[in-house]
Every structure is written in C-alpha cells, then in structure tokens.
C-alpha cells in the first residue's frame, strides 16, 4: 500500500484507529480463561486482522503504539519488552500473510491455513523467545519465570487469534464478496 512518500493515508488512519481499538479491547476485551493469570486477550485477534488487512508496517505500529498507549493510560507505565513483542506479532503476521488478498473477499481454506501458520509463527517467535529474552535483558528477571509466562501468554494468544481472529477475517471477507447473483425470493 506504500505510495508517494512512504505510508498511504489509509495505512496511517488504520494505524491510528487500530491502535485505539487495541487500547479499548486491551482494557475491556479480555476474558479470564479460568487458568490463573491467563486470559483470552481479544485485542490480539484485532491486531492479527489489521496486520492481514493493512500490511506489516501497520501491524508493527499498531502493536507498538496500541500496547504503549494501553499500558500508559490504564496502568501508568509501558512494559517495553511486551510492547516490542506485540509490534513483532503484527509485523510477522503482516509479512507472512501478504499474499492473502482478502480485499477481494476470498478467505477460504487455503487462506485460513496461511493466516494461521503466520499467526502461530508470529506468536511463537514473539512470546516464546523475544519477550522473555527482552525481559531478561532489560529487567534481568529470572529465566524460569519469564519463559513460563511467555509460554502461557503465547499459547493463549495462538488460540485467541486462531479462533477469534480467523472468524473475524472470515466475517470481513464475506462483506467484500461480489454479490452478483442475488435474486429476490417470493
């Protein structure tokens, strides 16, 4: 979508609105999963969908800006290792799913598989490796603790994006389908 100098306007706006949605869903859209300290963060389904729709740059920036603002506004201080990981999730999903052209409304079995391979890879890299490593590097936290936290969060996000993200993408795809053959029934 890049054009003229750098980002297109629609990407800029998508980053802004995507970040605002990330903040609101990050605050209100989490469902406790029943396992202590783990919840279904629906905001990552949103991040995955927007990365798919608006590309890797938008995904990266929505993750970075959205997560920073959410932490800052509601919790007083951004937790940088996880902020960076959120950005990374958006970036990787955006890159890996760039071949899916959902704007035409096609989101079938093949696209669902590509999208999910992308999101599982993104979440694995971000939460199983990058977030814990940054935690150790920045905050010098114990390795056992941060890898366990990363494992739980990553697994939860994979499930969240796999279920909710896929359903949202399919719902969006359906709104873009060409409605050539609709007939009124009697």
């Amino acid at each position, binding site marked *: 979508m890049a054009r003229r100098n750098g980002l297109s306007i629609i990407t800029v706006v998508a980053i802004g609105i995507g970040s605002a949605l990330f903040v609101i869903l990050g605050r209100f859209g989490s469902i406790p999963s029943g396992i202590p300290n783990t919840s279904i963060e629906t905001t990552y389904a949103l991040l995955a969908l927007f990365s798919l729709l608006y590309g890797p740059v938008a995904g990266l920036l929505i993750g970075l800006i959205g997560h920073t603002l959410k932490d800052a506004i509601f919790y007083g201080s951004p937790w940088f290792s996880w902020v960076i990981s959120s950005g990374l999730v958006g970036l990787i999903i955006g890159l890996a799913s760039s071949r899916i052209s959902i704007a035409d409304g096609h989101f079938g079995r093949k696209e669902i598989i590509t999208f999910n391979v992308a999101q599982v890879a993104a979440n694995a890299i971000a939460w199983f490796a990058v977030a814990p490593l940054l935690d150790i590097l920045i905050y010098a936290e114990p390795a056992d603790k941060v890898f366990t936290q990363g494992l739980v969060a990553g697994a939860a996000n994979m499930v969240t994006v796999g279920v909710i993200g896929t359903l949202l993408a399919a719902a969006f795809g359906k709104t873009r389908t060409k*409605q050539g053959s*609709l007939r009124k*029934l009697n």
Partner: protein
Amino acid sequence: MSNTIIEFEHFSFTYRSQQEPTLRDVTLSIAAGEKVLIAGPSGSGKSTLAHCLNGLIPFVHKGTADGRLSIKGRDPRELSIAAVSGMVGTVLQDPDGQFVGLTVGEDIAFGLENRGVPLAEMNRRVTAAAAAVGIEELLGASPQELSGGQKQKTMLAGILALNTDILLFDEPLASLDPASGAQVIEWIDRIAQETGKTVILVEHRLEEVLHRPVDRIIVMEEGRIVADCPPAKLLASEVLTGARLREPLYLSALKYAGCTITEEMQPQHPDKLQLGEYQFARLREWQADRAGGLVYPVYQPLLELKEVTFSYGKRPMLQEVSLTAGKGEMLCIAGRNGAGKSTLSRLICGLYKPDSGRILLSGRDIGRDSVRERAQHIGYVMQNPNHMLSKHLLYDEIALGLRLRGFGEEEVREKVLKTLHICGLLPFREWPVSALSYGQKKRVTIASILVLEPEILILDEPTAGQDYGSYHEMMEFLLELQQRGITVIIITHDMHLMLEYAQRTVVLAGGRKLADGRPENVLADKGVMDSANLRETSLYSLARRAGFTEPAEFVRTFIHDDRRRRQ
C-alpha cells in the same frame, strides 16, 4: 461567460464496481460568487457530482468518466487531490469522521499544517477563521465536548482558514437538530456574502436550506439534471412532485387549500411569500371544512416512570422524570445533546438503575429485573445499524436473539419467517446483510428485535440521515407496527415526524421533563422549542399570517389532509 468557475459538459461517470453510470450527460456551469443548491434524493447522483468537484473522484473512488469538466479553467483529473483541495474546500456530512484534531483549534489548523504554513501565520489564520464562525471560545474544546452544530462550524472554519475560492457542503445538515441546522445555514450565508466565495450546497432538505437565499437550485434524478433554475421558478413548477423531494410545508398547505403557486408570489421563503386576502380566505375555508371531528384514542398505560432520578457519578443526569407510555401509542422524545434522552432509554432497558423513583410495566415494578429479563418486553434499536449487525446472513441475524434464548430451530424458523414477512424483508431472506441498503439494514435491526415479540420498541433516531423517500417508508413501517399494538418510543429531533406520526411528544431539558403533550401543541411553544434546539415549522407562521388564533389546529388539519392525499 468569462467568470465561469465550474463547468461540466456532457459529463458522465461510472463507478468501477457498477455497470450503470451514476452521472449521465451532465451539463452545468456555475459562475464565480454564485450560491447554488444541488438537490435530489439518495442515489440521484448529487454526491457523485460533489465528489467530482472535490477530487474524491477520480483520486479515491475509481471509475470511468466521459465529457469535459473544468474548475477554474483546469481539469481536476489532471491535478492531484491536494491541488484540487486548494481550490475547493469541502465540508462532509459525517462530523466524527472528518474531525481529526484533538481540539477545535488543531482541527481548524489541520489543512494549514498539511500545507506547511509557518506557526505564526497559522495561529493568525486559525483565530480569524474561528472568529468568522463564532467558535473562538471553543478553540481548546475536544470533539467529545461539542454538539453536532459546533463540529460543523469547526469544519467550516477549517476550510475558511485555507481560503479556497469554492466552498462545497455535502449534506451539511444530515446530523444536525433543526436549530443548529438553521444556524449553520445562516453562517454559510454570512460567509458567502462577506467573502464573495462560490458556495455549493448538496442537500435534499430544501426548506431548511432555503432558510437563507440561494441563487439557483439544480435538481438531480437518476444521474441527470432535471431542473436548473432560481428557487422561485422551481417552487412554482411541478418538478418537485416528481423528484421525490419534500416541497416546503407552507407551499403544500397552500396547494391543499386550492391556491396556485406562482413565481411572482416569491415562494422561496415563508417570510417573503406574497399572500393576499384570496389565499387567506382559501386557507380558512379549507380549515373550516375539516375542523373538528378529530378524535384521539385513549391509551391504557403500559410503561410508567415515576419520579425517576439518576446521576452518573456526581453528575445528575435525570431529575424526577415521570412519564407514561400507553399501549399501542407512538411517543417521541426530544431534547438537545445531553438533555437525558439516551440516559432515559438506558434506564428503561435496565442498563442503569435509578437512584430513586420507580419504573412500572403493566403496573408491575420492574426495578429488580435484569437487562435480559426486560428485553422480553422492551426492545431497543440503535441509531447506527452497523453497530447491531454481527451475522453474515439476514436469517441468522434475526434468529440470533431467539437462539440465545434456547428456542428450537423449528420454532426459530417459524418466528423468523413471520417477522421477515411483517418487515417486508421476506424476498431477501437468503441475502447477506452486507448486500442490503442502509434503510434495509435499519429494517433488519428492527426485525431482529421484533422477533422477540416485545411490547415496547425504543428507537434512537430511526430516520436520521435518510432522504424523504426512505424516511417515509420507515415511518409507514413503524406505523404498521403501532397498529399491531406495539408501543413505539422514538428519540428524534425531526419535527415533521412528530407532527405526522406521533400521538405525543415529551421534551427533556437539563435532565428534567419540560413538556408532554400532543406534538402540535408542544411544538407551538416557543420556550420549549428553544430549550430543545427545535424550530417553529413554517406551518405555524403561515397559520398566524392567515389570522388563525389556534395555529396548532391548523397544523393538525394539514397533517390529516396530507395523509389522506398520499394514501
């Protein structure tokens, strides 16, 4: 024609996604300094014409164009959208989508920032533009604190700051209450006179725009220009009847009374209108023939609010509001932003609990019932249908509420089909929701509530942003529901809707009930109208001029006759 600023010559346009052209063979020229109204129903091509002027076509919306178009002697298609926006400043209908700044000041400055205007000059131009539309006090206010009218004024200041030669308004009244709409029209007129800029208004609300004079009206239909003449000439012709536009009410009244409208009568404004003893006599005669004999049904109380008080945190929202909605009655609730209208509907639906006071349904206190329990009896339909629709197929959307309540598929099917039939959606039952028009989507949201068989339906602005045709369809549909015994409560500032359809209007102001009665009586009270941001309709002033002591009576006659003629 040396001072022609805009010229279309045999211009046609077809959107990429469509097969039929949206504009067909349009030939039109507008002179510098002219003030022109482009009118037409939804889908007539008037917005497409506006998009050709401001560059959204072809730079954002793609398609194929034929014929010639020039703005200030240049073809916008050969420029960039930024270059076009230097000649044509646009105000759009949706104030939330175009208000991108965090405050009024920043938003006015937005266009200047994009052009790299230095800070000192920017400050000067922003202050001047804000003063020009009377919002200099609000420069630091955030969009969430503003009313629709103040947002539209901010947009107006934003294009004034850019000093473009052409000002284009694309349905500027769509989301405004009557008083704010009139104010915006007054400001536009003042600016047009003071600056001599070319002003183009795209609207279907003829009477509201004509609150201040325009030089010319262009009527569009199905992509073609069907009339292009001064307002007086247009109003004296028969064009409007065919064009699915509402003619000014005072003219309809005169026509019903058997008067002929001529250009010489100056029909373009109710205050300018030349009327003589002949017309007054006809009006009186018409009124006398129809006076009396109107009996209003008495409704059994269904929903009763008794001295309900509610505060949000420390902010009082409603104070001792009592009101009754009868079974099978249509009731309108009016009031300006923040008067407590939406708080009231949330209290009725149970999302908020009153601090004191009681809410009764068929005499039973429902204060302890949950949102879900109340939903069995009271349905709520939001203003924006896109906020309610979550399913792909129409059928599933309407079945959603039933399935959540654990009905068997057999029963679901039966109820859904019945509701689809009532709502006139049966032919579309296998369609995806996204393929429907805005008005149809709105109907789907009503159907999705109706299927739960509520006794009361609360609708938030059901006709907002719709043209006369879809307004009429929607209201006739609600009337049908009412005749089936459903109580319909409508939150609206559409005065004609109240007069034409409602049995009662309740006006809220500052969290208190200010008026409650027959719409034509409530709308005759100047003080009440001011506090609810409503305006007197032209029917009242016509009645006064004709010497009626009871203008409300005259309005009642008009509504009655109007209905009879359209059936």
